[in-house]
């Protein structure tokens, strides 16, 4: 669960966005789509806490694990500066991931870095012979990541960008509203909170409640112990706080209280 791993490659995939590959055979073996790792970005006491990153893909045969991330602060900036061959402390795989059924037709809705966990999910869904439709939105066409990889997997892909530089001009939720939600056995989504909130509202209107959303919240332990990563969900007994790290990060769209 806690490993000192070697950084094998680190590539800049867009302005401020990196894909880091590490040799972590145990994680590659057991990781499920939607699960995440807690990474130590510094070897000193500042930044102090580990940072959570979704598992972006694994190569079981070669023991490799990738994460895809955007530099937003000190921790991610330090990670981007990490040299190849250097050791990295990782804790995981953590959390409860997406359900991955077979023999179905599925819709995946990604916003921005939300593609990070969803890419792994799409791979697994395709490997099981499923039909997968992907709606993917970002600020502009340079921020649509892993497009070639997605094309190689032969998924049906629709894109949206805020400035119209690729696909639909507007958000990915606008695009879904315009095109109509394709029939799907289950819908998956990850992205910024406003997108997820808008998508949840759209799905409710469309009476398509079967959707799994991957959520983010600030974390300290990542292991379910500190209760720092609370998200409000509706349970049998009414609204309660659940832990994104241990009860999630994947929740049913219908159970989340969007505030």
């Amino acid at each position, binding site marked *: *669960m*806690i490993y000192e791993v070697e950084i094998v490659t680190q590539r800049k995939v867009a302005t401020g966005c990196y894909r880091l590959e590490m040799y972590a055979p145990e994680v590659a073996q057991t990781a499920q789509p939607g699960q995440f790792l807690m990474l*130590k970005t510094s070897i000193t*006491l*500042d*930044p*102090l*806490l*580990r940072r959570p990153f979704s598992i972006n893909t694994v190569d079981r045969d070669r023991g490799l694990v990738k994460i895809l991330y955007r530099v937003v602060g000190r921790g991610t900036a330090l990670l981007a500066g990490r040299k190849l061959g250097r050791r990295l402390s990782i*804790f995981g795989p953590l959390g409860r991931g997406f359900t991955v059924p077979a023999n179905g037709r599925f819709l995946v809705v990604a916003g921005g870095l939300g593609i990070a966990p969803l890419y792994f999910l799409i791979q697994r869904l395709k490997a099981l012979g499923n039909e997968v439709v992907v709606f993917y939105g970002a600020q502009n066409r340079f921020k649509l990541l892993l497009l070639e990889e997605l094309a190689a997997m032969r998924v049906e892909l629709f894109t949206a960008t805020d400035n119209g530089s690729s696909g639909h001009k507007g958000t990915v939720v606008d695009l879904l509203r315009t095109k109509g939600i394709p029939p799907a056995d289950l819908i998956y989504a990850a992205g910024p909170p406003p997108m997820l909130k808008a998508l949840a509202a759209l799905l409710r209107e469309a009476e398509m409640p079967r959707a799994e959303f991957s959520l983010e*919240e*600030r*974390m*300290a*332990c*990542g*292991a*379910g*112990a*500190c*209760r*720092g*990563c*609370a*998200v*409000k969900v509706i349970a049998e007994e009414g609204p*309660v*706080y659940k832990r994104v790290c*241990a009860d999630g990060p994947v929740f049913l769209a219908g159970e989340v209280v969007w*505030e």
Partner: protein
Amino acid sequence: MKPDLEVNLAGLRLKNPVLTASGTFGFGLEYARLVDLGAIGAVVLKSVTLHSRQGNPPPRVTETPAGMLNSIGLENPGAPAVVSKVVPELKRLGVKVIASVAGETVEEYGEVARRFAAAGVDAIEVNLSCPNVARGGLTFGCTRGMAAAVTAAVRQAAGDLPVFAKLGVTGGNLLEIAGAVAEAGASGFSLINTLPGLAVDLRQRRPVLGNVTGGLSGPAIKPVALWAVWQVYKAFKLPVIGMGGIMSTSDALEFFLCGATAVAVGTGNFVNPRLTTEIVAGLEKALAAEHVSDIKELIGAAHNGK
């Protein structure tokens, strides 16, 4: 020869002096697959109230320079659930258990302590940093009268178990409060709880935490914690559990030298879930290297001649 790490905390014999700090290790079971719980001196449980509590709105944690702020808000499933589900399981695993009790009234503290004592825990810690509803949210630990009343109620409910009063360093004079709880029957002290703090989200022009303010922990507070342990050790004869920013064996040793009989790891667990057991091993190594045969030789050793 292996150095002797055994300590006696007001009658509570521990095979080693490294504990978990309340609220940073859940109820221990969260880490059972990852950490050998039996190798930790004692597991201090997250603070528990009589009834379940939902806790504060998110965000509940945020990082600060060499530290973090939290405003969990005492989220817990309530004493009956913890007593029936958690305590028996920890005992089955051979773990020494210190229950941390909390409440909104003096009576609630007493009742929670009674239930844990009946469940067979090894000691009780009194979290005095809870808001007193009857006094408009002032924490119990901030006046001598309230701190003493709570400690006395827990002392009475705890039978012959050791009772450790957990104090912060803000809100009242540390030595005065410590004196009051000692007189009210505390067997020892846990020092220190988090310091009050606030972080600002510049872009949104508002506090980061959903609860506005939070408690500061981690390496940033270590000097404050060492100061508190030093003061209280010097003024009282009672044992001290020292905590605040312990991230390594050397940090732990500093607390022993200032007068702690045991140490607790808090925020450090988040960075390294195995830090407690690694410090146990680290202490054995460090003592052997310095030819110290017994950890007790180091307790308060920095006070010599001061």
